[in-house]
């Protein structure tokens, strides 16, 4: 029951109907029942793994809360008798205890993910190593099924635990409500990875039926379907031809495939998120946005502030910050300041933390060397930006450019897009070696003539289809451009006269119905990020 299937929309309509029929204070229970039903229908008995993660997280958070409260009581009870040193020692002891509890909880929750997603990758590579050393042994491999959305709900749960540990939020006392926070059906498939403080209370309180919300929600769903079915699934035809082919393409043709894949994955992922956000909005729930016009990024660093925002901000808050501020990294900073000088030395810990963070971003996508390479590629580009960005900016200004403005901004956006496309070779190719071969073939021939000689029409889409794709991309870029300029499109549309409004709606509906790419049984293909 994928996001673009008729069955899913029928299911959503039914749930919405029941939701608004229930008394307000019980509406959250409808969402929980629907979410668990949805998960069971798509994943069967793998639902047990979702329940396991939910329970472990819920109980660990309660334990952390218990330690916090115990400490607060001793503080208020005997504050006069304790000296400053004693108080400090007591606080340190509590912190150690909490760290241990957090470590147990995280090890269990992330352990499930690590085992299911990464064990076979580890076993394969370890066995290669054993064979290379001529050791006559091998780790067995398991036929593991990956539960739907595990990378998303695991990260959401882990973030919740760390927030309770840091005292940012209190532990949830209701296991059923908490189960809804982990499993909310529009977002479990491919995110966004939400924070408890932003989402939980919205899920728990009952929302009234609101025409504006339903209207805006439905518009967002329609826009998401347009991006997914008209753009992404159409671009996929060419992308698959080029990337699944036996290396018969070269030069610009391969890069054209990478460019289309960049647009495809943007349409696919952000389209899916728009469907999720639109449905949530109908229930009165605002899911956090995951994209901020990534194609208008002016650097790779800026790109990651605009692309899959909930993953990058998760990594920033729970990996990058703790790593950069850890004792080890502070000591490393001092060491490099002594050896490399103040200006570069100061940046070395940030650089190192950044590369490690992006290595994890890469591995998050899957157990494969190509994702390791994808993470490292992005991490190194951002790292180089940290180390040499200021010097490059100063040089550019001396040469008469104004970074971030006008023509120079356009150049930055174009350059970033090209760098992003090259990164996509790693995330799209079948393997790391395949990505290297494709890169090699891109540079082995200079053939810009393919743009006009009709070669691009032999990649699976004929001229008409290609024009539809091009127009759809222009619509997407125009919408993004207007939003980049600060124009709220849905609000602006709702102020137009009725006939114009409906003309736009009908055009959008027909665009999806007529130009959407359908497979067997009129189901659109599944989402790329569903596989992560």
């Amino acid at each position, binding site marked *: 029951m994928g996001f673009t299937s008729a069955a899913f929309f029928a299911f959503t309509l039914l749930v919405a109907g029941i939701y608004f029929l229930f008394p307000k204070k019980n509406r959250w229970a409808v969402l929980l029942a629907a979410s668990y039903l949805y998960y069971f229908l798509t994943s069967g008995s793998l639902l047990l793994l979702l329940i396991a993660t939910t329970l472990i997280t819920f109980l660990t958070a309660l334990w952390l809360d218990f330690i916090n409260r115990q400490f607060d009581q001793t503080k208020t009870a005997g504050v006069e008798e304790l000296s400053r040193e004693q108080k400090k020692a007591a606080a340190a002891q509590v912190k150690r205890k909490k760290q241990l509890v957090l470590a147990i909880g995280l090890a269990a929750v992330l352990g499930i993910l690590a085992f299911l997603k990464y064990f076979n990758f580890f076993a394969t590579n370890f066995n290669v190593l054993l064979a290379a050393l001529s050791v006559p042994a091998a780790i067995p491999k398991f036929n593991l099924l990956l539960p739907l959305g595990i990378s998303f709900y695991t990260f959401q749960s882990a973030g919740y635990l760390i927030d309770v540990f840091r*005292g940012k939020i209190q532990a949830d006392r209701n296991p059923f409500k908490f189960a809804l926070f982990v499993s909310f059906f529009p977002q479990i498939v491919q995110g966004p990875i939400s924070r408890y403080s932003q989402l939980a209370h919205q899920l728990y309180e009952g929302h009234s039926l609101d025409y504006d919300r339903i209207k805006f929600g439905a518009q967002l769903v329609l826009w998401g379907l347009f991006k997914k079915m008209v753009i992404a699934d159409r671009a996929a035809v060419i992308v698959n031809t080029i990337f699944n082919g036996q290396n018969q393409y070269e030069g610009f043709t391969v890069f054209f495939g990478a460019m289309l894949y960049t647009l495809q994955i943007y349409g696919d992922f952000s389209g899916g998120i728009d469907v999720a956000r639109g449905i949530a909005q109908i229930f009165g729930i605002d899911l956090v946005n995951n994209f901020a016009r990534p194609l208008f990024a002016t650097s790779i660093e800026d790109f990651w502030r605009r692309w899959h925002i909930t993953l990058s901000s998760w990594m920033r808050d729970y990996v990058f*910050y703790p790593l950069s501020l850890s004792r080890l990294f502070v000591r490393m900073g001092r060491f490099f300041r002594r050896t490399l000088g103040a200006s570069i030395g100061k940046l070395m810990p940030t650089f190192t*933390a950044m590369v490690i963070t992006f290595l994890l971003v890469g591995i998050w996508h899957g157990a494969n060397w190509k994702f390791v390479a994808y993470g490292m590629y992005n991490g190194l580009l951002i790292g180089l930006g940290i180390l040499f960005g200021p010097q490059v900016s100063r040089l550019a200004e001396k040469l008469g450019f104004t970074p971030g403005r006008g023509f120079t901004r356009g150049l930055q956006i174009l350059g970033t897009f090209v760098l992003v496309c090259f990164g996509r070779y790693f995330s799209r190719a079948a393997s790391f070696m395949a990505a290297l071969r494709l890169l090699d073939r891109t540079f082995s021939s200079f053939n810009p003539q393919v743009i006009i000689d009709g070669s691009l029409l032999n990649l699976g889409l004929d001229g008409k289809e290609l024009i539809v794709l091009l127009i759809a991309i222009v619509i997407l870029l125009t919408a993004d451009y207007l939003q980049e300029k600060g124009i709220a499109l849905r609000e602006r549309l709702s102020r137009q006269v009725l006939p114009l409004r409906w003309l736009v709606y009908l055009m959008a509906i027909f665009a999806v119905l007529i130009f959407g790419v359908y497979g067997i049984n009129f189901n659109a293909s599944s989402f790329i990020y569903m596989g992560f």
Partner: protein
Amino acid sequence: MLDKILEVLATLRPEVDFTENHHLIDDGILDSFDIVTLVGELNDAFDIEIGVEDLLPENFNSPAAMLRLIERLQS
């Protein structure tokens, strides 16, 4: 103490007017790299230990907010 904070900020990002701006984080003027560097400098300058749990927008949105954080950590 505020002057010292402004001094640290000025070396970090000379082009920003820190006395005017009260939404340094919310408006994206200071990014995560700036924050990490800034925390290191403030720790050294005031002999404090700013922890991960203190890295909230409300603690870094303005020099005055940073001053409050530092005073809290010193007491």
